[in-house]
């Protein structure tokens, strides 16, 4: 059974154009559905403004979907702010890109890792101390760093501390939004290995959101490619990154610079991704797509099963 499931979820924001303009609805996330099983990782890739972070916030229950349903462990996600929602916080945790912004600069690492235990009333003081020490050990932080403040740690150490805090309540789901993007390559590898080890040891499910396809490929069991609020391709990361079927995924994968020979010929897209407030008709990708036909301009393609069990939302990809 799936741990987290999103069914036809949209998130609409109202933005105003100019000071006196009329509000324009912006569909940051548009009819997306997916599920994550316990202990598995779904990677979400896409560029700025594609709705990947909004998806993460909706999945966590921090934001209510405008349409569709989010369910966690088979039950509907409670309304934010209610006592049920608060109780559920311990089961769902978030880690994001900037660990310094996520930490309280006046508190020591140990105090911050202990905080969720205090909030959720887990253990007594001595038990909490033991637990904090164990958590810091799990994320590979030396014991003497427990009494340091965030500014005394390196970027990698801070991200480990944030992770220890997220794991304190033994969550079932971790939403990791660009968790290693601010780290140098050698440190990034340390944190990625730690994440996959912790997932294996604790059976945590992950929603791993990143613009970095190489990192997503490394950690994900399944991957979803987003463009302008919609999932355009979803399936096995090996298959998608080796042979993307959607023209946007193809361009995205081909754009990744690699040391050494590349498998897919570079496709350079013209122009910028469109403004979500000004969504092109039909397939949102059609103005930048070299293959677009009349039906692409008229009709929104739905995700449908294609070869090897993956799902693709493109009129030009043969359905399986």
């Amino acid at each position, binding site marked *: 059974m799936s741990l987290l499931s999103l069914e036809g979820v949209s998130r609409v924001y109202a933005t105003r154009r100019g000071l006196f303009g009329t509000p324009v609805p912006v569909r940051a996330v548009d009819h997306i559905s997916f599920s994550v099983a316990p202990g598995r990782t779904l990677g979400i890739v896409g560029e700025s403004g594609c709705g990947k972070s909004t998806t993460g916030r909706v999945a966590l229950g921090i934001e209510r979907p405008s349409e569709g349903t989010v369910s966690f462990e088979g039950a509907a996600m409670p309304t934010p702010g209610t006592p049920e929602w608060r109780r559920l916080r311990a089961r769902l945790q978030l880690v994001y890109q900037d660990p310094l912004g996520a930490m309280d600069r006046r508190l020591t690492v140990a105090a911050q890792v202990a905080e969720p235990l205090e909030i959720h009333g887990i253990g007594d003081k001595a038990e909490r101390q033991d637990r904090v020490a164990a958590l810091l050990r799990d994320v590979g932080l030396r014991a003497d760093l427990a009494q340091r403040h965030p500014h005394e740690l390196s970027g990698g150490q801070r991200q480990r501390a944030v992770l220890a805090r997220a794991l304190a309540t033994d969550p079932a789901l971790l939403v990791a939004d660009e968790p290693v993007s601010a780290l140098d390559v050698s440190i990034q590898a340390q944190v990625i290995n730690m994440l996959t080890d912790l997932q294996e040891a604790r059976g945590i499910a992950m929603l791993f959101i990143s613009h970095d396809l190489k990192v997503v490929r490394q950690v994900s069991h399944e991957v979803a490619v987003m463009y302008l609020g919609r999932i355009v391709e979803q399936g096995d990361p090996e298959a998608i990154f080796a042979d993307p079927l959607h023209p946007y995924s193809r361009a995205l994968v081909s754009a990744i*610079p690699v040391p050494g020979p590349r498998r897919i010929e570079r496709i350079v897209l013209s122009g910028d991704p469109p403004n979500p407030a000004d969504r092109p008709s039909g397939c949102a990708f059609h103005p930048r797509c070299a293959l677009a036909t009349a039906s692409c301009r008229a009709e929104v393609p739905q995700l449908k099963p294609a070869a090897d069990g993956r799902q693709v939302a493109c009129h030009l990809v043969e359905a399986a």
Partner: protein
Amino acid sequence: MADPLVSIRDLRVAFHGLPALRGIDLDVAPGEAVGLVGESGCGKSVTWLAALGLLPRTAAVSGSVRLEGQELLAAAPSVLDRVRGGRIAMIFQDPASALNPVKRVGVQVAEALRLHRGMEGATAEAEVLRLFDQVGIPDAKRRIHIYPHEMSGGQNQRVMIAMALAGQPELLVADEPTTALDATIQAQILDLLRRLQQETGMALVLISHDLGVVAEMCRRVCVMYAGRIVEEAPSGELFAHPRHPYTQGLLAALPDMVGPRRRLEAIPGGVPEPWNMPPGCAFAPRCGHATPACDAGMPGFVPVGPHHQAACVHVQPATVPA
């Protein structure tokens, strides 16, 4: 190599007595593309800020930076003013903060034309339009009148590149030019830089943390660690046969896009703090091959192949054909 355009010798920089650059030797030939890779704090940006006299006064700079024989390090401000933005231009990671937010983008590019080529009025405007066209900004006639916040990050970077080209530089130093951009936009900008380099014949120094970007853009790559160049090689050779343990470590730590997934080989520990530099090789504390010999002194370059050298006491020198 032909007579170098820029020749850097034993360049050292210290901030408040703490070393940031610990002896850089680097030549850039006319028209070539050189990559500088390394992680945060390795000195890849400081090298060029120091070379162009852009560091604050608190920085202690020594060594030599010559532009076609002319020493830049102790040069008079009037000399540097002609070099910077004229013969050597630089672009940075964040174009939005490098541009003036309250001036129209066309005016900003025209300013560079006035300073470096003495162009005014209609001549300058025509040249701005040509430059916008050259860097691929569509609808240039309208775009020269808008402000940076009205453009996307990729378009702003194109404006910065147009401004850099305004002085007809012989060398463009691009410091993480695509790091803040999305992947598909990064591909556009890299394509543009490659095309401009061919069109203008300028040399390019590309500073990046991204080994992939450097591999695709540069013939020759220098890997930096803790204020020194530790390996230098033609880019294909470097990525196929890295010789310095740090370069090998960086490549092993990078997830692949193709082939079977493997556990990443992380480099243990972190970069040494400037106040706590190891006595010899700065990488020794993190290196799997380290022996007491590594602490004996800073390893010099060992030639390991054609145009390929590594600063490690454990690499075997190769006989290099002359």
